[in-house]
């Protein structure tokens, strides 16, 4: 079977669902799930070795014939689109239901289908013009999903910022594709590694795709958009939409000839983004903003892998280059899975308590044990802890970096620092996710809202359970997916695909499986050892303090307060403090907040300077005719002078 049939079915069901979604919620869900299933079938067919699929239309759209292409690389991303698209649709049935959001639920369903279709179109398009069309449609769908709850001011601001940043990136892509079309003489895309003159275009593509992927200094739109959007939308934005930027980078770095510095720049961007992204995440108090910054970190990890692969490719180093690339590609899947899971979990918390502030939550495990357990699993996966999937991909990236260092070539000067940064990032991610999971779900409820929390229903739990199962499966059986990774790396670099699986990949899976079984057995065993002896319950001992209160617990600020100051130079935390004064101090105040540093300290000053310049220039435009005549006179004299002196010379 070729992927054409399932893709056709998927397109048909999704387009119908887009049209029916406004009113008919049940039918919409069935159609979207069917469409996602068909998409996944198409992707799996290609990944299982059916070979590349191409299709050209006989008719033209916008003056160009349609050219669709599905190879192992785009199929990897397409499968992720399908999985998260279906999970989010199921989740939204309860989370963004018609009863709770009568005004926006229907719209949300339509845009969801549209986003799904446009993402798939980006992945399939093999013509620059259509790629741009699909890309723009995808960006706009994202905007309308972010501002579903447009009554709220912060949502509108976040949506606006997203739209502005997204279009800045699209501008780069317009320049990229039109320059590409001008130099090659055609909008057709495909491998063009031998045309060395195209190499500088890589920088345009890097800018355009990096904005969408949220690569560090260009991530400014990401935290507020992910935090303010409805949680199922945050999940798809973070889990899938960012990956479209990664897809663009991987795709075109594979197809284009590359400038010599490409690998160095990408790996440096990745290392900076990974470290600073997670430092920002640790400092956050807003649960969803924390997850958003952790996405910046994970994109950084993917960029480290891609950068190492670029360095390896430039030096003809097959052995470690492909490990790093395989790690980066696997991390695309892994991050898509566990970050969607975590955003769904955060959405359940928001649904149950009405707040995203970690310092107002606590003790939720009693009311919502399912969410707590699944969120904890996701937290362990994102902290790259074995035996879960996050570790497998980071392990591959590490192996690539270590092998690169052992090669003792010039590339080692990039891979050694990157490995050290990756270690620091991993430990910070652990701190961040201990904080995110334990302060929210453990201890005593810090506010009344947290006391009155309730478990979310079946429709919200099922997609979380499904994603968690996928995280566990990828962690325990990494050997099964090596052929997929090999095919995808083979598409990126034709010489890399045929290589054998690295031997230990299977061993790692076995070790993971044994560890997982032993961990469960030990937990159950210790529980059984303890229970027959009678569990006594008592207040927390706390060194004998008799009246512990929930307000005494460590908060998110105090938990992050040890490591955050190490990064104060970049984070620039703002603090408002009024110390207690006198013998009977009446009031004190301590407020601490980490700003959106790049936005507030870099972009906004630059924007203000531009506006100031513009308002200065506007003084020339005052509507007084005699001055305009004077301008014309001065202009004529200047022109005359130029002509005169030019002529004389």
């Amino acid at each position, binding site marked *: 079977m070729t992927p054409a049939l399932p893709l056709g079915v998927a397109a048909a069901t999704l387009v119908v669902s887009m049209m029916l979604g406004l009113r008919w919620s049940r039918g919409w869900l069935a159609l979207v799930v069917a469409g996602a299933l068909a998409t996944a079938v198409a992707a799996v067919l290609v990944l299982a070795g059916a070979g590349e699929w191409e299709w050209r239309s006989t008719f033209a759209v916008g003056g160009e014939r349609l050219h669709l292409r599905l190879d192992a690389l785009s199929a990897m991303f397409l499968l992720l689109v399908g999985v998260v698209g279906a999970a989010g649709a199921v989740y939204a049935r309860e989370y963004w239901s018609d009863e709770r959001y009568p005004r926006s639920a229907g719209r949300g369903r339509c845009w969801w289908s549209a986003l799904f279709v446009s993402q798939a179109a980006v992945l399939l398009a093999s013509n620059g013009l259509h790629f741009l069309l699909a890309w723009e449609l995808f960006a706009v769908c994202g905007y309308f999903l972010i501002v579903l709850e447009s009554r709220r001011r912060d949502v509108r601001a976040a949506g606006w910022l997203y739209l502005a940043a997204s279009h800045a990136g699209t501008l780069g892509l317009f320049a990229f594709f039109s320059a590409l079309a001008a130099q090659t003489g055609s909008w057709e895309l495909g491998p063009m590694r031998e045309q060395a003159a195209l190499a500088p275009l890589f920088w345009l593509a890097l800018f355009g795709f990096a904005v969408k992927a949220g690569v560090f200094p260009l991530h400014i739109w990401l935290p507020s958009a992910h935090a303010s959007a409805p949680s199922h939308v945050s999940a798809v934005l973070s889990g899938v939409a960012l990956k479209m930027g990664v897809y663009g980078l991987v795709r075109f770095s594979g197809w284009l000839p590359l400038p010599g510095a490409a690998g160095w720049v990408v790996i440096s961007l990745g290392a900076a983004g990974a470290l600073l992204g997670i430092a920002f995440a640790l400092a956050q108090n807003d649960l969803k903003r924390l997850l958003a910054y952790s996405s910046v970190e994970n994109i950084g990890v993917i960029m480290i892998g891609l950068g190492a692969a670029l360095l390896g490719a430039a030096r003809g180093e097959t052995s470690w280059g492909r490990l790093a690339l395989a790690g980066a590609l696997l991390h695309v899947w892994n991050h898509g899975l566990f970050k969607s899971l975590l955003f769904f979990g955060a959405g359940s918390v928001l649904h149950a308590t009405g707040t995203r502030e970690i310092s107002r939550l606590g*003790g939720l*495990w009693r009311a919502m044990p399912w969410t*707590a357990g699944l969120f*904890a699993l996701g937290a*362990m996966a994102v*902290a790259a*802890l074995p035996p879960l999937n996050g*570790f497998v991909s980071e*392990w591959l990236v*590490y*192996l690539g970096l*270590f*092998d690169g*260092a*052992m090669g*003792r070539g010039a590339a080692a000067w990039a891979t*050694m620092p990157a490995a*050290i940064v990756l*270690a*620091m990032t*991993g*430990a910070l991610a*652990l*701190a961040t*996710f*201990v904080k995110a999971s*334990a302060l929210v779900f*453990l*201890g*005593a409820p810090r506010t009344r809202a947290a006391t009155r929390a309730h478990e979310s229903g079946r429709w919200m739990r099922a997609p979380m359970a499904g994603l968690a199962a996928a995280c566990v499966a990828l962690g325990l059986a990494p050997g099964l997916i090596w052929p997929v990774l090999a095919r995808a790396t083979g598409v990126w670099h034709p010489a890399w695909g045929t290589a054998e699986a690295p*031997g*230990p990949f299977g*061993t*790692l899976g076995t*070790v993971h499986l044994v*560890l997982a079984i032993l*961990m469960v057995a*030990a*937990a159950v065993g*210790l529980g059984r*050892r*303890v229970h027959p*002896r*009678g*569990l*006594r*319950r*008592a207040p*927390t*001992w*706390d*060194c004998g303090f008799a009246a*512990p209160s929930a307000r005494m*617990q*460590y908060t998110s600020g*105090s*938990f992050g*307060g*040890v490591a955050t100051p*190490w990064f104060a130079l970049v984070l620039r935390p703002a603090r408002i403090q009024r110390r207690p004064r006198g013998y009977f101090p009446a009031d004190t105040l301590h407020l601490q907040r980490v700003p959106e540093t790049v936005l507030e300290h870099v972009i906004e000053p630059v924007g203000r300077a531009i506006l100031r310049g513009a308002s200065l220039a506007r003084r020339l435009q005052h509507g007084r005719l005699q001055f305009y005549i004077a301008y014309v006179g001065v202009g004529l004299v200047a022109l005359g002078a130029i002509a005169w002196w030019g002529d004389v010379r």
Partner: protein
Amino acid sequence: MMPLVESLLRLLVWLLLAPLLPGLINQVKAWVAGRRGPPALQLYYDLARLWRKGVVLSHLASPGFLAGPAVGWVAITGAALLLPLGPGGGGVSFRGDVLLFVYLLAVARFCTAWAALETGSAFEGMGAAREVSFAVLAEVALITAILTLSVQSGSVTLATMLAPAAGAGAVLLAAGLFAVLLAENCRVPFDDPNTHLELTMIHEVMVLDHSGPPLAVVLHGAAMKLMIFAVLLVQAVLPIGTLSPVVAAGWLAGGVLGVTLGVGLVESLLARFAFRRVPLLLTTAFLLCLFALLLAWKGGGA
């Protein structure tokens, strides 16, 4: 049949010998202070007694409070089995096992911190926050040390990495790893394992609310972690893999004993540092490992 027996023997060595190290450290401290001190086997008695005791749980604790120590203990045991025991070799050995080793220790850290935060106690929150934050610097130093060994030996498998001597940077590497050992195992000057009731603790304060068998599991895990770091340090520095089995076993045992004595001496002669100086000390450890890495880089080519 033989590999199974070997693995069991290796496991028994780890499980049975580990609780001896804290006892030896206490002996050294008592000897320096001129006291009699607790018997060297005190931890064994404590573990046996705790294992038989009942448990008092906080009202706030979820099932994760019991699962945390159990999972953490399995992770530490797994890390121990990955580490080769001189001539005894490692339980499982594959390319890249060293990274699994580092991340298994991270699993244990996650579980300890998680279980600490179960109780909603301010003290335990404090301990957990410090543990996970200082571990950032310790892990960086550890990975740098491992990178040094890999560049030196051209391998990412623990067994081959640890076999030869550390080369030119051995002293730097030993100093760096020793500092990491002290930090990761919460010894002086980073932490003081003797006191419980202070605001200055890291590890001990995280297990304040554990009792009975879970506490036994936590203590045993901590002892194994100390032994893991001691064994790693000795094998990283000494050319254990190049000696004959008997001599190698002797050197390994002597080395671990030496490290234990060193910890005891440091603990007797040094006061605990102020917290603001802990990051500085760990950064120094990282820099030592970094210089060792540069030396390995320069030296290997010659």
